[in-house]
């Protein structure tokens, strides 16, 4: 937890004690190997907060990420985040600046399209004759949408922490030794931990032969506007710290010269669309 100290945020003891149980349960029931499930962050809601964990599973060419969530009040039990259909993702995009309430089951009705009348679904009965509620867009869908956005924009890894192996699959570098002091102070040494979007990185991943660390991921320094990320050494000059100002609350640390690094998000889950006025 000392690594998170400069972020000013942390989990309460009840959240940590609950997650300890919930994450072990998820790891065992989903047959995830040790170390593949990690804490991702916390999204503040009005009445309760969401706690999110991410599981990384090897996949070609980029490891796949699966998210699990719970709330502070029920932190001992996690569930998998729902997948988003195109319709749901489009609806979530319209709600992106709306703050979270903290209730996963809270409905956010999709307004009927123009010219279409609202369809009142016939009640469907289950085998006991009880009404099955029709599937609606709920806050957990909104959560899934935001977590995917934040993860794509603000999860950071240092150069060399991930490699392309002989089979051209992106894998975690088990022998990672960290960045030297000077390299750790340069934004160019850090990358988005996502399947690459830039053409340059995509090509590097496809190219046969050894792929140099840093060629196959998108550098965070290319994000616009310049200043979206800030990088600085902590006061003791033993850690490099990165914050995103488009997603305030996104925090990355790297203990210089060691294999210790991590990204965590502790915020309200909302993008800062006012960033152009604020830098």
């Amino acid at each position, binding site marked *: 937890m000392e690594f998170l100290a400069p972020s000013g945020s942390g989990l*309460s003891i009840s959240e940590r004690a609950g997650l300890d149980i919930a994450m072990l349960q998820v790891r065992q029931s989903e047959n995830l190997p040790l170390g593949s499930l990690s804490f991702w962050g916390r999204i503040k809601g009005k009445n309760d907060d969401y706690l999110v964990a991410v599981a990384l599973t090897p996949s070609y060419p980029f490891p796949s990420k699966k998210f699990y969530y719970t709330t502070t009040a029920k932190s001992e039990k996690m569930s998998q985040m729902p997948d988003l259909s195109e319709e749901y993702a489009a609806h979530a995009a319209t709600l992106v600046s709306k703050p979270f309430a903290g209730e996963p089951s809270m409905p956010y009705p999709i307004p009927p399209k123009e010219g279409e009348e609202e369809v009142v679904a016939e009640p469907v009965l289950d085998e006991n004759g009880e009404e099955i509620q029709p599937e609606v867009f709920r806050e957990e869908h909104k959560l899934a949408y935001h977590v995917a956005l934040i993860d794509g924009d603000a999860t950071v890894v240092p150069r060399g922490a991930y490699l392309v192996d002989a089979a051209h699959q992106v894998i975690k570098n088990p022998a990672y030794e960290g960045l030297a002091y000077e390299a750790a102070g340069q934004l160019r040494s850090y990358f988005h931990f996502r399947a690459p979007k830039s053409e340059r990185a995509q090509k590097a991943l496809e190219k046969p032969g050894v792929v140099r660390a840093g060629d196959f991921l998108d550098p965070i320094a290319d994000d616009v506007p310049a200043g979206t990320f800030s990088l600085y050494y902590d*006061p003791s*000059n033993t850690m490099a710290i990165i914050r995103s100002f488009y997603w305030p609350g996104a925090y990355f640390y790297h203990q210089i010269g060691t294999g210790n690094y991590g990204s965590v998000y502790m915020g309200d889950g909302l993008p800062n669309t006012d960033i152009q006025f604020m830098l």
Partner: protein
Amino acid sequence: MSFEEAKQYLRQEDEDGNSLYEHLSRVLLKVIVEKPQNANAMFEQLSQELRGATQVKPTLPTEGEPEIAKPEKKSQLDWCGAVSNLYAPTEGDATEITYPDLMTEANVYEWAGINFGKMETYRLYLAIKQKAVVEARSLRFWGKITGRSGDYFVVQGDNPNPPSAEEIKTVEGAEGANKYAFWVCTHAGGTWTKLPDTTPEAIVVARQIKRFFTGDLDAPVPSYPPFPGCTEAHLLRAQIAMITSECSISPGGFYAEDDEAEEGIKAIKKVEEMEDFKSAEDLKDASNWVHHEVPINVNGRCNQPPVNEEEEEGAEPADELPDLPLLGAIAEDEITDGPAWSISVCPSGAGESPDSAVVAKSLKWPGAVAAAFGNKFINVYCGFGFASSRGVSYEPPRVPPIQKEWAPTEEDDKGLIEDEDKITQPVVEEEEEEDG
């Protein structure tokens, strides 16, 4: 090619005296010694790593040559020096000063999701204690404001020299937003800087702008409308004034209106002998929490501006703003989408007990937190230092329309008659005649 020949070929040394044979044996040795899980897939990486390690020949330091200093050496040693100063006992005469028991408070911050790290918290405690002894005044920990290249830790104390009565037209003194002084440092052990006093004008402008702090107190604040003071220290002070005034809340009963204050001056004092403590159950209700700092009005003032006795004749007196209520309940605070505070009991659910802390979080100022536990309460702030937009995009204020040209009124129209054109004939210089 026979086996020996092949071996001979692999053993060929390059300019630096390395051979492929040697390299391969090192790689194989590494694989066998370290037994990585998937040696086959890792082969290229292992090979590359060893190349990095062996291509640079280790050199033993030789006498007489200066040692090459690592770049981080100086900055890390500087930090060690600055922070170890905190461990020196400070001499001071003042006996009645108080400073926060930060380690205990930090346990309560944790319930609110705020954590500065245990070690940093202790060092911060040392730093605040030292500052309190040096300043010979009681200090409280106000919180932390995150900047783009560093953070500010803020402590609060009574203002040692508030603006005097002569300045009162433009600045408010101890009866207003300058009741307290604030000192900031970028990390425990760093030098404390006292922030400049704030002005009503600065508060009014600060409300219209939205900026991230840079972490440098001298940084300029480019903004529209132009920010008075122009440096980040002034903006930081103005934001702190607003947060202090709006987010200092406590369970009802700790504070009361100060009757001894001068007429027309609003003041709040702490109740000496507090008896009626609110229970955790009561505090779940926002109407049992009250603001205990004097609110700042739209003009950036806590009190009505003083009346100027020598005012010009005929000048219309400015409209007086209605007095904002003192010790108002937080239940009445509202933001665009509902109440401005969210209250939770920690621990809640199965862990809830009469001793649970009750935490109130501001939705208007994310990061502003109050917590009541036992018979105490704390206020702390840990955030970016600006108010939440709650999903509404920020729009910088518009530039005022261009002022109209002066136009004569009807009365003036009759009285004003245009002069006849005054024509001044230019003096024609005599031209010298030129002979063709």
